[in-house]
């Protein structure tokens, strides 16, 4: 574990470079955390508004009960389907009467006019349009409907958040990676003499690389952890405020944020640091060891 001590030693020797690298990963992670919050909040809204995000599919009138149940079983195997409720003609009539607070006598038709139908709950809200289209394409349904404009707006917003989020995240990731690569390169260059002495007295390349890569990894991990801690504090107060100001809105619980933020911040911070130092080592070390 001598290389871990060496990595700490190297970090202590270059406080200004370490601070720049730390801050670049720290701010990247803060941006990432805002998107994680947005994503989780959208998920929460989707679950909360579950009813309006249910697909209703009405079978063609001439379809037999057996055939309808067979199609229902097939649809259950679709990857985007979470749950399917089969509604018979009698159940549909009962629901209708119950909804309008009517009795059987108030409904004097001899033949039940309601078709067989399904209520399909998707696994993810954003998959509703695609799933509805798949159900329609089976050719067994007369009509397939879902929450209409609300869902479309929601899904559009959701996709926009994901697209913008992905682009921003990619850019900040690349930015912090470039910063780390260059800082580690400077760090290697400033230790050029030391590294060449190691090499001359018999150090393997692995021995020389270990503290450098550990240094990058630790820098990323610390910055990610710091971003996690700050985010937790900020989101704690923010959610308290939002829940008090808009109590009827489905805000996520603060505790639901902790695990995703901790995982993403430490993992991504560590990966940026590790990847940056690996790239820097590959590009500079050969030159230094010549």
């Amino acid at each position, binding site marked *: 574990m*001598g290389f871990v001590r060496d990595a700490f030693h190297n970090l202590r020797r270059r406080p200004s470079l370490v601070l720049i690298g730390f801050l670049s990963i720290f701010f990247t992670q803060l941006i990432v955390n805002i998107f994680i919050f947005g994503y989780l909040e959208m998920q929460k809204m989707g679950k909360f508004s579950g009813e309006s995000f249910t697909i209703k599919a009405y079978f063609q009138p001439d379809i037999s009960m057996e055939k309808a149940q067979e199609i229902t079983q097939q649809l259950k195997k679709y990857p985007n389907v979470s749950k399917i409720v089969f509604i018979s003609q009698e159940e549909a009539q009962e629901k209708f009467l119950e909804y309008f607070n009517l009795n059987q006598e108030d409904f004097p038709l001899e033949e039940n006019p309601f078709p067989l139908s399904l209520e399909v709950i998707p696994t993810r809200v954003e998959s509703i349009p695609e799933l509805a289209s798949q159900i329609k394409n089976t050719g067994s349904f007369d009509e397939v409907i879902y929450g209409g404009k609300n869902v479309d707006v929601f899904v559009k917003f959701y996709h926009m958040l994901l697209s913008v989020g992905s682009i921003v995240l990619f850019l900040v990731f690349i930015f912090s990676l470039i910063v780390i690569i260059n800082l580690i390169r400077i760090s290697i260059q400033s230790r050029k*003499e*030391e590294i060449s*002495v*190691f090499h*001359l*007295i*018999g150090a*393997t390349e692995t021995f020389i690389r270990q503290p450098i890569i550990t240094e990058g990894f630790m820098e990323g991990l610390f910055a990610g952890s710091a971003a996690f801690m700050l985010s937790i504090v900020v989101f704690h107060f923010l959610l308290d405020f939002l829940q008090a100001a808009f109590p009827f809105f489905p805000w996520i619980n603060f505790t639901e944020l902790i695990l995703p933020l901790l995982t993403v911040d430490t993992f991504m911070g560590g990966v940026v640091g590790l990847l940056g130092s690996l790239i820097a080592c590959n590009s500079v070390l050969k030159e230094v060891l010549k």
Partner: protein
Amino acid sequence: MAFIDFDKVYKIYTTGVKALQNVSFSIEEGEFIFLIGPTGAGKTTLMKLINREELPTSGDIWFEDFRINQLDDAYLPYLRRNLGIIFQDLKLIPSRSVYENLIFPLQIMGIKKNLISKLANGILEMLELQDRKNHLVEWLSGGERQKLGLGRALIHQPRLVLADEPTGHLDLCSAYDLVKTLYLYCREEKATVIVATHNDRVLKSFPGRILQIERGRLVGDM
């Protein structure tokens, strides 16, 4: 096969300087050798060829059964672990302590901490540097740095020691002590020691083979 064998070695730098020309000699294990010659004769180049810091332009250099000039880069660290080198410019790391500089060769070899500590304390005592153990190299005097360079070269008990002008910055008494340490190491450990020097007085104080180089050519083997 000799311990070290130079076979018609030429080294011509890209600048056109002919550092070594048609140099051939053999060294057996356990020999104590002085490499002499004026400044610029090619002594340092010869040392660098053994350590594979440089490659010969032509000819072969053997270290036991290994042809150093054709050794794969991956094996280079393992060759160098057999060597203890006192560099002309010492190559100590000023920002590290005496102890840290001293134990580099042992750390590289993955020696356990308690054994490192034991070996290092032994060397520090031998070199009378115990009080300087935790001092940074930049705080040491020239003579103390030279001692530390010697300690780093011997701490891992190498089979071959290369000392490039180790007496350059020392007074006669210190130079004598340093070469005496190398000489005793050679005798006690049956190691091969090559000392490049142009200090005649030191040269005359110790028995040993003398290789004389002038203008890149081996002109004497006594």
